[in-house]
């Protein structure tokens, strides 16, 4: 029931950095899984998986060897960007830590096409999201922990160790929090959309300067199964510019800035409603809340028709981004000339959708702090916290922890706070009170 129209590529599981061990069946069969708050199903490879290379390289669940196995047989498929994991549901006892969850519904994967899971360090995924996004409406493991009275408090919490030299990767605590792994009090925000651990997020600041993009509210998801921090393209572009991340030059963006930059600036100064500006200058239509693509080619588009398909959309998007950027600069009282130069530079820092950006490891000290506002509190990330180092010594490469993800209103704008954020901030998932809490991790 996950039609393609409702699917946005979110993550590459090979980037998942934190994983742990569980066991299924009696006697226990061990599997390494990613504990993923961004999904809600448990799946492991099945002994009935014969033709997928991933299955050959990972341990497989053999129901015939388990005395607690119960047949279910309902078919299941979890769809991915270019493939799907499919199989069937089974029920068995699942051991997590010292807890034995009885009669847990899970997916035995019989097909894992593609290369995604072939090279993965883990065998499967244990979803810690809500039942609302569970394929086949299967109860997530934590629902059954609660139902079977296995945990005192209806809470689980993550501590992800950011010290690369430590052997201990982190800790997932069911039933409470480990006071040794955070300092101060948690800032709690209510879950606004059950399914994901989703909450409202306020403005994003770059080097303590507000960007303004989320001042009227954005949504965010706390997702332990994602490595990076994903957010709307206009803000990720501004961050890329501030940290010197290599982006993809967008000619449409430059053309819009060149031809309409001054007009946008003038309209903002004359206090025209920002959401109406792009429709007013003819690059978008106005749907009552925001600009939407006109579906016809403008003069700008025709000039750049060779550059890409769907340039009408591109010009509308570029215009809307330019409005956000110019607004942000006007707030900082920049001169007109400086603003137009800046937004032209931003066009060169446009990130590839869901693509990673390289940064110069030697320039970390010059990069600004990036901060997110959650529950009225500002949560900082320093360059050392948002840049990922790949490899060692002179061969080391640095990757920006920010990637672009665009989700349109009313669901968006949306941020995905993955390990980059959850590494700095100890995270409590309180399903009793349906809230998420963040405190500085130690």
């Amino acid at each position, binding site marked *: 029931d996950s039609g393609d129209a409702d699917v946005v590529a979110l993550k590459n599981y090979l980037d998942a950095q934190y994983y742990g*061990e569980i066991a299924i069946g009696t006697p226990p069969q061990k599997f390494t899984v990613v504990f993923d708050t961004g999904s809600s199903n448990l799946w492991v490879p099945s002994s009935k998986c014969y033709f997928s290379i991933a299955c050959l390289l990972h341990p497989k669940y053999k129901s015939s060897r388990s005395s607690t196995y119960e047949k279910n047989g309902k078919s299941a498929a979890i769809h991915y960007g270019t493939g799907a994991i499919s199989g069937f549901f089974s029920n068995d006892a699942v051991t997590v830590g010292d807890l034995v969850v009885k009669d847990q519904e899970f997916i035995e994967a019989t097909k894992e096409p593609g290369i995604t899971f072939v090279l993965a360090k883990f065998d499967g995924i244990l979803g810690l999201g809500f039942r609302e996004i569970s394929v086949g409406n299967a109860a997530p493991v934590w629902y059954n922990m609660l139902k079977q009275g296995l945990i005192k408090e209806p809470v689980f919490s993550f501590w992800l160790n950011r010290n690369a030299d430590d052997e201990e990767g982190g800790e997932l605590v069911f039933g409470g929090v480990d006071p040794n792994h955070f300092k101060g009090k948690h800032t709690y925000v209510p879950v606004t959309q059950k399914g994901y651990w989703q909450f409202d997020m306020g403005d994003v600041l770059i080097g303590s300067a507000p960007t303004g993009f989320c001042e009227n509210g954005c949504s965010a998801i706390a997702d332990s199964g994602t490595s990076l921090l994903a957010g709307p393209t206009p803000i990720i572009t501004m961050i890329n510019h501030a940290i010197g991340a290599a982006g993809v030059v967008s000619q449409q963006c430059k053309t819009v800035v060149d031809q309409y930059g001054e007009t946008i600036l003038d309209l903002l100064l004359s206090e025209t409603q920002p959401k109406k500006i792009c429709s007013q200058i003819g690059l978008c239509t106005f749907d009552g809340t925001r600009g939407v693509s006109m579906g016809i080619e403008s003069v700008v588009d025709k000039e750049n028709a060779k550059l890409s398909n769907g340039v009408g959309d591109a010009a509308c998007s570029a215009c809307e981004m330019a409005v956000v950027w110019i607004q942000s600069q006007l707030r900082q009282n920049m001169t007109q000339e400086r603003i137009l130069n800046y937004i032209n530079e931003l066009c060169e820092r446009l990130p590839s959708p869901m693509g990673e950006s390289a940064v110069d490891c030697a320039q970390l000290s010059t990069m600004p702090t990036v901060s997110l506002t959650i529950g009225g509190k500002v949560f900082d990330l320093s360059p050392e916290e948002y840049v990922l180092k790949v490899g060692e010594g002179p061969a080391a490469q640095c990757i920006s922890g920010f990637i672009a993800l665009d989700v349109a209103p009313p669901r968006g704008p949306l941020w995905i706070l993955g390990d980059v954020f959850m590494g700095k901030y100890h995270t409590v998932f309180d399903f009793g009170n349906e809230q998420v809490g963040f405190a500085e991790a130690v």
Partner: protein
Amino acid sequence: ERSDGTVRVGLKKLKLDSKNRLAARVGSKQDKPLRGYSG
């Protein structure tokens, strides 16, 4: 299981190196879907 009623699961951390980064790039088109959202 601790006396405070909590149960702890140790996590391992994957150390990023050029080998698994390459793997990540190869598999980058096989992404996990974000269910319920349209792009």
